[in-house]
């Protein structure tokens, strides 16, 4: 098939340091991957194109790039699955990290964040003579999160990182969960405290980009939600994130549906006057436009039945 690769180019050594798109038209086999096509460009058309790859079997995690706007391992992505009706494919470097050249990004910020979560086992007691033994069944639930190949796809497409580079990000937090949930690790309390600080678990927007783009099914966001639950259970609930989750659940339990007026008040705390005063302009604008949620909140018919479900299922947990 004939394809047009529309590749984002950047050469820091060029005179104008201009970021631009360059089109490459080439003939490729139908089963060809985006990586095959890029390598063909580099070898046969334009030797100046920079890209990174190694195993070509979606194991090493070297070739993450954005294909048509979303991060993918290009060795795992067939051209025919992503080409549009005009057989065009757009390829860009990963987002949320500096570009070294063309499609090659600098992974330093990625690795710095992985290191920041202390990605090593912190067991209790004396170091054993041989390995730490854990029964199979206590580790099995971690196989998903241990499949991470550190490709950076989730970090590239993280919408929270896009507005705040201090956010620790999905890959590091998935790794953090891996240690919190490891039966051999004894530092979960101090870990959960650390992960709950600014830039941590509560800054995730739950947008699911990381779940969607992860080529290995790690589902980082699910792990972040697990960490939130564990943090609350461990008593780290004196923050807006934890209060928001707990208030939401309490309000739905009470009336079967959300009371939007009371949710922010409960989240900030009834006596957190600076935060509540900050809500005033928004509230006043809403009142002026007749957009204020009702002051008297009506429960759904059968709210008692919903409450009963809460009691039964919360008891089971």
């Amino acid at each position, binding site marked *: 098939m004939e394809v047009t690769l529309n590749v984002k180019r950047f050469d820091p050594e060029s005179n104008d340091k201009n970021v631009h798109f360059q089109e490459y038209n080439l003939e490729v086999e139908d089963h060809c991957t985006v990586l095959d096509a890029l390598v063909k460009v580099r070898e046969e058309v334009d030797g100046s194109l920079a890209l990174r790859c190694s195993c070509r079997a979606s194991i090493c995690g070297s070739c993450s790039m954005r294909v048509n*706007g979303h991060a993918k391992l290009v060795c795992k992505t067939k051209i025919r699955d992503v080409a549009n009706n005009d057989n065009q494919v757009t390829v860009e470097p990963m987002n949320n990290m500096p570009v070294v050249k063309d499609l090659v990004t600098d992974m330093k910020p990625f690795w710095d964040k992985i290191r920041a979560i202390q990605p090593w086992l912190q067991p209790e007691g004396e170091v054993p003579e041989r390995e730490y033994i854990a029964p199979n069944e206590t580790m099995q639930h971690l196989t998903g999160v241990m499949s991470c190949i550190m490709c950076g796809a989730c970090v590239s497409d993280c*919408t*929270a990182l*896009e*507005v*705040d580079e201090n*956010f620790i990000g999905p890959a590091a937090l998935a790794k953090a969960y891996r240690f919190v949930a490891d039966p051999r690790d004894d530092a979960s309390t101090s870990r959960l405290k650390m992960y709950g600080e600014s830039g941590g678990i*509560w*800054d995730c*927007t*739950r*947008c*699911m*980009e990381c*779940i*969607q783009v992860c080529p290995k099914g790690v589902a980082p966001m699910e792990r972040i*939600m697990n960490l*939130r*639950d564990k943090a*609350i259970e461990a008593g780290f609930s004196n923050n*807006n*994130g934890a209060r*928001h*989750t*707990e208030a*939401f*659940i309490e309000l*739905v339990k009470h009336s*079967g*549906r*959300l*009371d*939007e*007026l009371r*949710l*922010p008040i409960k*989240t*900030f705390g009834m006596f957190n006057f600076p935060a509540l005063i900050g809500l005033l*302009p*928004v509230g006043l*604008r*809403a009142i002026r*436009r*007749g*957009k204020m*949620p*009702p002051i008297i909140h009506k429960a*759904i*018919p*059968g*709210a008692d*039945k*919903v409450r*009963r*479900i*809460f009691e*039964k*299922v*919360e008891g089971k*947990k």
Partner: protein
Amino acid sequence: MKYAFFPGCVSRGGCPELYPAAVSVCERLGIELEVMEGASCTGAGVLQEKNQRLGDTLNARTFAMAEAMDMPIMTICSTCQGTMSQAHKRLADDPAYMAEVNETLAEEGLEYKGEVIVKHLLWILVEDVGLEKLKNYITTPLGGLKIAPFYGCYLIRPTGALGFDEHPEREDSLERVIEILGAEVVEFAGKTKCCGFPILTINEKNSVAMVANHTLDAKELGADAMVTPCPLCHLNLDGFQPKAAAQRRTTIDLPILHLPQVVGLAMGMDPKSMGLNRHIISTKKFLSRIAVEA
């Protein structure tokens, strides 16, 4: 076309303009609705953070109620839709789990058989009404106007739970509706990103920065308005746009319309009855252009 209508919390709370707009547009299109008054909140992904089984049980309860009504469910909120779709998939993928959930529901005399269909109004317009038929209802095409789509995360990810394999048309359904209404689609990268609402009370600075990015990007590309099928996105993109403008020290003034509002306008319906006067960012200029451009 008859649906069990699941309005969600926000269309009767922070976005009270959405509910009447959705109902009157459905009426015009011959979509019959029976409101699910006794259905609970979906949990919106927040409740699921703490207890996924509880969220799934609440949604299974809603599904069982719809099965008893013998109707598919219609949602008007991306977050409700996505949360229900995810619950639906988890229950469908694991019969033993569904049996346990049904055990909890049995006390209320309910049983979820696993056959419910849950569809957002957007999907109903494209798949059940059909764009060709929708076109016949357009009396005031929105020619000359540029509209930016904004989906809301839960209507676009994860694709596996949202039926994108069986319905690939869902991926660009909003753009196709905008086109049928006669307006020009403003393509911009932010259309499938997060509006920032889920972290509004947790990290307002980041949340508002997202509003600023999306509205300013769309504006720069010439958008006259943005349309969203998600009232939570609307709360942030509309309600916190003044803060976003202040954060960037600029003016934005991009009207944010609910999906049924924009459909209704193209069908010649009265803006006020659809609550277009109840937005934080004024829709006046946009509305005046419909009359002129059409």
